[in-house]
């Protein structure tokens, strides 16, 4: 299994991957609590970026409303937990099909009626905004007042109920990120992955070649949505509070997709690299400005925006394709 996953990667890439994973596994023994929280955020964004990349990077369908699927996952698991005491893993089992079904509805409507490109992207925003305002008025999840998970000092980590210290959450999200990386690798190398690539590159040609483009685009949306909803469940149990205004906000969707775009759309490691670069950048800007004694709310965001402009201007394909070529660890192109 592992051998098949790694087949086709240059030896240097395998060694680099092993080193990075090893470093991440031992990180909690070395770094402090603050950095663990930052790493959790990075891995969360790497995970969601990877999930978004299935839809956009592989199948070429631009979604700007992925906050919808994360938000649904978060709310379903949190509501089950707070109202009925049902644990998060059961919540995941419900959240994933619901998110996939929502993705299927949006995909069905859009693809059946020929909504594509920018229009499709804006349709996804519309559904996410619809959900945001809807949940803001949905009494069963406390509407705009927010849904809170009970928080206490935990003496031991309860993995089954996902209650515990940040280190436990760190390993959960690390495992999830590696799992979704493997999933993406498998998808990419399977029949469905090649169909997606064909659709992304030229949909009409793909259809002419006999690919059921509608069906495979639907698969892309549904898989992407289901995977994203897992991240939402994690979000709910890690942050313990949910406000529709936050979880369904378009800024969440944007945050999820900045990583893969900066890292490299359609690549396997781009979303992970992008999450590290962007979150690292944001955190170091905050630290640097604090060290310089600058206390201007918004200043780091301005620098962040300028850096985004610079990266997208200098590296149109993203950082990973450029970096992997330079280091000789590029995947052999299929």
């Amino acid at each position, binding site marked *: 299994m592992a051998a098949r996953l790694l087949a086709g990667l240059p030896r240097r890439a395998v060694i680099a991957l092993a080193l990075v994973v090893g470093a991440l596994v031992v990180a909690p023994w070395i770094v402090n609590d603050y950095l663990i929280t930052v790493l959790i955020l990075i891995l969360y964004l790497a995970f969601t970026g990877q999930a978004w990349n299935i839809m956009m990077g592989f199948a070429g369908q*631009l979604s700007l409303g992925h906050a919808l699927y994360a938000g649904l996952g978060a709310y379903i698991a949190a509501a089950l937990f707070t109202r009925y005491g049902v644990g998060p893993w059961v919540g995941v089992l419900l959240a994933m099909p619901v998110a996939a079904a929502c993705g299927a509805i949006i995909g069905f409507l859009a693809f059946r009626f020929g909504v594509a490109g920018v*229009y499709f*992207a804006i349709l996804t925003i*519309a559904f996410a905004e619809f959900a945001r305002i809807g949940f803001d008025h949905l009494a069963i999840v406390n509407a705009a007042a927010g849904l809170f998970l009970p928080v206490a000092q935990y003496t031991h980590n309860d993995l089954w109920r996902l209650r515990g210290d940040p280190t436990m959450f760190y390993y959960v999200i690390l495992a999830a990120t590696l799992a979704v990386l493997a999933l993406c690798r498998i998808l990419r190398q399977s029949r469905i992955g090649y169909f997606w690539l064909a659709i992304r590159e030229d949909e009409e040609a793909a259809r002419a070649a006999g690919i059921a483009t509608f069906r495979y685009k639907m698969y892309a949306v549904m898989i992407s949505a289901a995977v994203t909803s897992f991240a939402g469940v994690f979000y709910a149990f890690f942050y313990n509070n949910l406000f529709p205004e936050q979880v369904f906000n378009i800024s969440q969707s944007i945050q999820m997709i900045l990583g893969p775009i*900066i890292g490299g759309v359609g690549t396997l490691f781009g979303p992970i690299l992008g999450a590290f670069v962007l979150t690292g950048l944001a955190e170091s800007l905050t630290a640097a400005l604090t060290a310089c004694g600058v206390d201007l709310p918004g200043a780091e965001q301005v620098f*962040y925006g300028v850096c985004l402009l610079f990266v997208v201007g200098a590296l149109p394909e993203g950082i990973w394709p450029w970096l992997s070529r330079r280091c000789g660890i590029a995947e052999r192109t299929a």
Partner: protein
Amino acid sequence: MPFDVYLNVAVSGLLTGLVYGLMALGLSVIFGVIRVVNFAHGEMMSIAMFLAVVLFSAFHLDPLIMMVPIAAVLFAFGYALQSGLINPFITRPEHSQFLLLVAVGIIIVNVLLIVFGPDARTVQTAYGFDSFQIGPLIVDAAKVYAGAAAVLFAALLFAFFRFTRVGAAIRACADNHTGALVVGLNVERLYALTFGIGAACVGAAGAMMTLIVDVTPMIGPTYTLLAFVIVITGGLGSMAGALLGGLLIGLTEALAGLIFTPSAKSMFAFGILVLVLLFRPQGLLGKRAA
């Protein structure tokens, strides 16, 4: 509730809708010609709103008059943005353009935040509480002036595209990019001009909008979304469609705010957007792409 309450709210919504329409017109012109979706549109409008607020509070200059110089400032901003940043991106994929404009939006929001702070600002004109009464109808004077100014501005724009040589050249770029290059049009300069015109629309709309709502640095993204909803409802690239979409969304928001709750009003706007995208993807007045 008596009928004239509905009527009053509807008229007020329609007048606000005219200003929305002008804002959306800017987005529509930019997309129709350059084929770039301006994800920093609302943020650009908040620049104009702050300019209007500052001019008013410092020099007591009326936003309705100041909309002309403000539109000129935004024109220069849009021209510079297109020729400096966006022109190299016109052949890039959509997500790349999206990232570029999102970054521009982030910078605008946070520069405004640094300069003006997070508090809401407002303009209190002498006619702020005046109203006109026509039969059972009572309408805010400020909204009437703003709506009339929006119509005037839009009419000037129609005339520009219809009757001037530059306007015709821009329409040529929109119809056929390669053809425009072949006949020797300076497409990059025309694109910069177009982005400037779109920015001027949103600048004028922003100045008027200060008569209707308060401004904070954070309202930009909300108006970006609203502009999308309006433009797609009316038909991307159709100028009359943008105005019609503005009226429709303004009316919907006003009535939804009255019948349900004000905080749910944009849900109905998004509901309309979804319906339009599904049943008439080219928008109410848009032409279906060949």
